[in-house]
């Protein structure tokens, strides 16, 4: 039995064989599982069976590939950031340009895949939760493309921060429902989406946007996002005839990071670096660093690291970036952390903002605030590495959605000098 609870974590293997996880119980080491109301359990078992059948079907894979290529614009470039590399004076830096996907972020890799799952399993209606709005937009987009009814749950606070994305979703024909409970951010939007799914489970497909939630979602989302890492590996071998020394990705729930990391898990020479949002700083209470400051516990159906008080009440997260403003993290990340295969580091709001400006000015690429956290960590890592080494940043999304918020924060000083 892999029913291992918090107080009985198993001994840890140094290099987990990624391909083996999750196990039959939906566990990544001790993490993961299915802690949801009984009403959802049959749907989760059915989804698991449908997914295993369809993902092994060459016809399904071919169709998925078609939409990734012709609708989303894959493969995305692996771009050598020459000026950033020169500026930092260390490792050669490449950007995996997920920001060039249709809808502006990696999220669509997963929503195309899950929309196809919904279609093939006869569901005509999809729901989703969203933080920054990128997953909501990606879901509304594929719902429009495939003729599915779509409802997106979004925290009231996030709707304010990301008004443009709310507008985009509505233009695409989706209904956007504000989550008005708790901190009115991604955590609460996810609660509302799960509650809604409990009531409509018989005719509704829930497109979870990250590698979180009950089994089999963390695996499904990882599998649909691994195209990021698979392409990076292939492109890196073509360009440099070698694997990178390190890959860096931001982690909220952690789908772009898991997609980038997964194909490299068994390549011991590749360091995997996940960047958590440290908000105002780890010494404050305003951050979203679940691994640095959290403990294992259950959130949204999975055992994983989360921010909580002594008695297991989930505590609010904070990040300048709505997409990282989440008190938990995907269970596979919890396992990669506990097993030592990946390293998770904190980056503050201010460091992310500085990186946002630096990349914009040196490369002419405006990153999403989420992705700016990964850039900020690369700024720390690259100078410590040799000029013969290679660092890949997963540039998970573009920053158009954040321009308005940054204008507000800086009093309209577009060069960040405010």
């Amino acid at each position, binding site marked *: *039995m892999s029913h291992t609870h918090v107080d009985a974590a198993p001994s840890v293997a140094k290099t987990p064989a990624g391909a083996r996880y999750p196990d039959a119980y939906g566990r990544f080491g001790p993490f993961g599982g*299915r802690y949801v109301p009984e009403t959802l359990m*049959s749907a989760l078992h059915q989804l698991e069976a449908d997914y295993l059948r369809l993902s092994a079907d060459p016809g399904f894979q071919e169709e998925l590939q078609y939409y990734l290529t012709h609708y989303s614009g894959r493969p995305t470039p692996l771009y050598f950031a020459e000026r950033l590399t020169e500026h930092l004076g260390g490792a050669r830096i490449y950007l995996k340009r997920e920001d060039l996907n249709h809808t502006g972020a990696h999220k669509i890799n997963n929503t195309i895949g899950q929309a196809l799952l919904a279609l093939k399993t006869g569901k005509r209606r999809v729901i989703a939760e969203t933080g920054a709005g990128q997953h909501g937009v990606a879901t509304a987009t594929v719902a429009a493309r495939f003729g599915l009814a779509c409802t997106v749950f979004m925290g009231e606070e996030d709707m304010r921060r990301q008004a443009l994305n709310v507008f985009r979703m509505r233009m695409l024909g989706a209904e956007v429902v504000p989550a008005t409970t708790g901190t009115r951010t991604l955590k609460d939007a996810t*609660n509302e989406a799960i*509650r809604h799914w409990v009531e409509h489970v018989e005719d509704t497909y829930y497109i979870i946007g990250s590698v979180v939630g009950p089994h089999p979602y963390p695996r499904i989302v990882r599998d649909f996002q691994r195209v990021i890492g698979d392409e990076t590996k292939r492109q890196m071998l073509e360009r440099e005839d070698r694997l990178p020394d390190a890959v860096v990705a931001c982690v909220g729930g952690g789908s772009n990071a898991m997609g980038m990391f997964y194909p490299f898990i068994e390549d011991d020479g590749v360091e995997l670096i996940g960047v958590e949002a440290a908000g105002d700083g780890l010494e404050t209470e305003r951050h979203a660093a679940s691994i640095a400051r959290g403990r294992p516990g259950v959130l*949204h159906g999975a055992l994983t690291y989360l921010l909580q008080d002594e008695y*297991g*009440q989930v505590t609010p997260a904070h990040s300048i970036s709505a997409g990282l403003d989440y008190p938990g993290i995907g269970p596979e990340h919890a396992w990669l952390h506990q097993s030592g295969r990946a390293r998770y580091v904190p980056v503050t709001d201010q460091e992310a903002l500085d990186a946002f400006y630096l990349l914009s000015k040196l490369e002419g690429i405006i990153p999403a605030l989420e992705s700016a956290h990964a850039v900020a960590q690369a700024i720390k890592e690259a100078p410590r590495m040799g000029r013969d080494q290679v660092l890949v940043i997963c540039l998970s999304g573009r920053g158009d959605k954040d321009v308005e918020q940054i204008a507000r924060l800086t009093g309209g000083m577009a060069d960040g000098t405010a």
Partner: protein
Amino acid sequence: MERLERAFRKRVDRAAFIPFLNTGDPSFDRSLAFFRAVLRAGADILEIGAPYSDPLADGPVIQASALRSLQAGFRLPQVFEAASALRPETDAGLVLFTYINPVLQYGLERFFSDARTAGADGVVIPDLPFEESDPVRAVADSHGIALIPLVAPTSGEDRIAGICRQARGFVYCVSSLGVTGERARMSARLQELVQTARRYTEVPVAVGFGVSRPDQAHEIAGFADGVIVGSAIVRRIGEAVAAGRGDEALLASVSGFAGALIEALHRTGAAATPTLR
């Protein structure tokens, strides 16, 4: 655990009445007064709610109640305190209702040990499905606490069989799809669900989620052993708190509603079929 069985068996003329209230809403003492009011009205089993920040199985009424309790500073220790205070006063079964994360953080062993000491008879954990329940049930069993499982309208017969074979105390039958909250109509499949559960267990089967009116309670009493009512009671507390009403009127309202529900739980005519063997 025997106390739970007795709570069902002592009633042959009516189904057991199982009210749910959160601890600490709106204060510890006032919540104790509500527990006492429903006990005086004739509750057979109390569901003592532990507040949780992210109650996935609960609708707006119980979410708001949990939030009031949390904001007043209440956590698991006060839930045990509530059970300890009530235990000497009643023979009714005491069941704690909590989500899994507070239990894990408190520690499984410590949780069930303290539950036992407080005089609790059972625990309901709505986000702990059958697949994840083995290690929890083992500790619960070792302390003589019943881990009460839930079955839902979406549970297939194989699942129901598996769940019911491991059932302790009673089986908590979820009346309809969705979270807790008052509903105008009960699922047509409910009676069938209860009957399926009975095929696989000897323990009583109680129905909850959505039961809000005496006529619904009466209908369910015709085929189930107990009826759980939460949101319809908790809503009265929420409204009174919002209106700033004092305890006197609120206690009368809670007691009166509990009395009406109990009256409705009496079985009539052909429906008077005590189902316990």
